[in-house]
């Protein structure tokens, strides 16, 4: 559907997008995730043809955005970060203009207009001037504009910004209902949103793709690699000495627990290894009662924070190399997820 190959965008010396490659399959919802300034909007602006690229290719539905811009743009509906609204027009006037601009056939314009207005729930403000609308309504008018022509790819840059919780839910439902017939790409820094809505997540930082996969996959990858324990005992060192020799355990951190006489243990394990059995039998034979044990419960949020902070704050002398192995795994997983 959309293929981005080795995309590079430079502004002078500043590299905004750095050899970014990914493929977007038809009918799914993709989430671009990344901190501010990660290159999400730049990538979207390039994919929609708003700005040019320095190197690489963007192929939309078989059309190269540079060589056949008009054919490629015809397949895309775009809601930029700031909705591109003419504030001196009424909502209906604006949408009619957008429909003409997108070359929606004359006979279908009225019907499509009615549909997008209905989908985005802006019936009540149809005849009002855009300049008098609240931010939430403006966002929805922008979304209606992106839907016009019902293009195969709909790209939304932070679509729920400025909406109230009820509207956010409505828009998410709308986005979900669009998948299937349409491919939706949305960017967000709200992780719960991506987790809830998207089929696939692309995590971007410093213009590079650092992880991708479905939210469940990403979680699983990290969740499988950590184990949290609460054990009875006073001597952290003894517990550490007990657990670290176990096969499959790569790192152990022990900290005093919430109550006196308890210790919180965090184990990092080699990927795909289930060490729970070994841990429990080791503890029992050493007479250390296990009060609680669970697989690391990681949200996308944690993955996001870890993955993005690794990129920036990479220090070679990280203590115990605790996080190195899982990181390498995740990077690999990212590559796999793309293909």
């Amino acid at each position, binding site marked *: 559907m959309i293929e981005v190959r080795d995309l590079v965008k430079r*502004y002078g010396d500043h590299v905004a997008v750095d050899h970014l490659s990914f493929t977007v399959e038809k009918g799914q919802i993709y989430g671009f995730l990344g901190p501010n300034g990660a290159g999400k909007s730049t990538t979207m*602006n390039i994919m*929609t*043809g*708003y*700005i*040019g690229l320095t190197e690489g290719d963007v192929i939309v539905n078989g059309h190269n955005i540079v060589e056949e*811009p*008009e*054919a490629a*743009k*015809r397949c*895309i509906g*775009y809601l*930029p970060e*700031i909705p*591109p*609204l*003419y*504030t*001196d*027009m009424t909502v209906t*006037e604006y949408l009619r*203009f*957008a429909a*003409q*601009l*997108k*070359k929606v056939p004359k006979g279908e314009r009225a019907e499509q207009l009615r549909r997008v207005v209905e989908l985005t729930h802006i019936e009540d403000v149809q005849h009002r001037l855009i300049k008098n609308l609240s931010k939430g309504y403006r966002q929805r008018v922008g979304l209606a*504009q992106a839907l016009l022509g019902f293009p195969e790819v709909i790209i939304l840059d932070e679509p729920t910004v400025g909406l109230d919780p009820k509207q956010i839910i409505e828009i998410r439902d709308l986005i979900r209902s669009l998948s299937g017939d349409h491919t939706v790409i949305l960017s967000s820094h709200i992780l719960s949103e991506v987790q809830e809505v998207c089929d696939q997540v692309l995590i971007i930082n410093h213009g590079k793709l650092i992880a991708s996969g479905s939210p469940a996959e990403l979680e699983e990858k990290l969740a499988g690699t950590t184990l949290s324990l609460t054990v009875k005992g006073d001597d952290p060192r003894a517990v550490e000495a007990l657990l670290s020799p176990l096969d499959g355990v790569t790192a152990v951190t022990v900290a005093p627990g919430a109550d006196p006489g308890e210790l919180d243990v965090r184990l990092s394990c080699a990927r795909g290894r289930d060490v729970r059995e070994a841990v429990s039998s080791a503890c029992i034979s050493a007479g250390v009662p296990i009060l609680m044990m669970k697989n690391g419960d990681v949200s996308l949020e944690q993955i996001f924070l870890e993955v993005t902070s690794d990129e920036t704050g990479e220090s070679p002398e990280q203590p115990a190399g605790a996080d190195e192995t899982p990181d390498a795994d995740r990077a690999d997983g990212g590559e796999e997820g793309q293909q």
Partner: protein
Amino acid sequence: MSAIFKRDLRSYFTGMIGYIFIAVSLAFVGIYFLVVNLINGYPYFSYTLSNSAMFFIVCIPLLTMRSMAEERRTKTDQLLLTSPVSVGGIVTGKFLAMAAVLAIPMVILCACPLLMRSAGAAGIASDYATLLAVYCMGCMFIAIGMFISSLTENQVISAVVTLFVLLLLYMWDDILDFLPTTVTANMIGCLVAIVVVALLLYLMSGSPNLAMVAAIIGAVAVIVVYFVDATLFESLLPNALGILSATAVLETFAFDFVFNWPGLVFYLSVAALFVFLTAQTVQKRRWN
């Protein structure tokens, strides 16, 4: 393109600008019409038009200041540039919308020669030909204003710069009168022009070698010509720059009653050039 044309045209009349533009143009020409034709009884409306063409200096910036600048400021250019319309189409649509607004007072002014005719003599043919020339000149000014508007996000800067440029163009002939006609002065002028061109080349290509080579070739050529036939330099600059005079064409229409075809082609090709440059500016920004 037609969508942009229609939207822009309408937007001039949902706000005040379109009405103000028409009102000011008509009032300005109307005063001249009253004084020249009705009170003093000159039978040529073309005199009025030629004398009052300076209303463009004030009115055209009013029309063009927001054309490109406002789209960038409000980010609506994102809608235009991501829609399946070429940049050339966008810019042409905007230009034609402004040309259409300009056509409205021109059409109303078509009544003036008829009014004069009903009261006595009027040079109908030359009057309408001059109207056409004024319109073409206006289109040229609009293209220049649109180009300036595409360079900035700020309407006020766009308006002020356009006003200044149009004023310069309007007074072009008077300014050229002050240029020296002697051989040495003109030769020095040519050398300065070559340096400026070389600097521009350097800024555009980023290659100092190319600029140096161009400057040296130019300078050598000037010096060779100077030694071969120095008289060629006499009044060279005033004559060469005089070709660019915007009002000279209009004056041939208005006072000599000549239908100056090449003049109209000049107006329209400069307009086309600036429409093209506007599109290039937009493109360049996309690729930066």
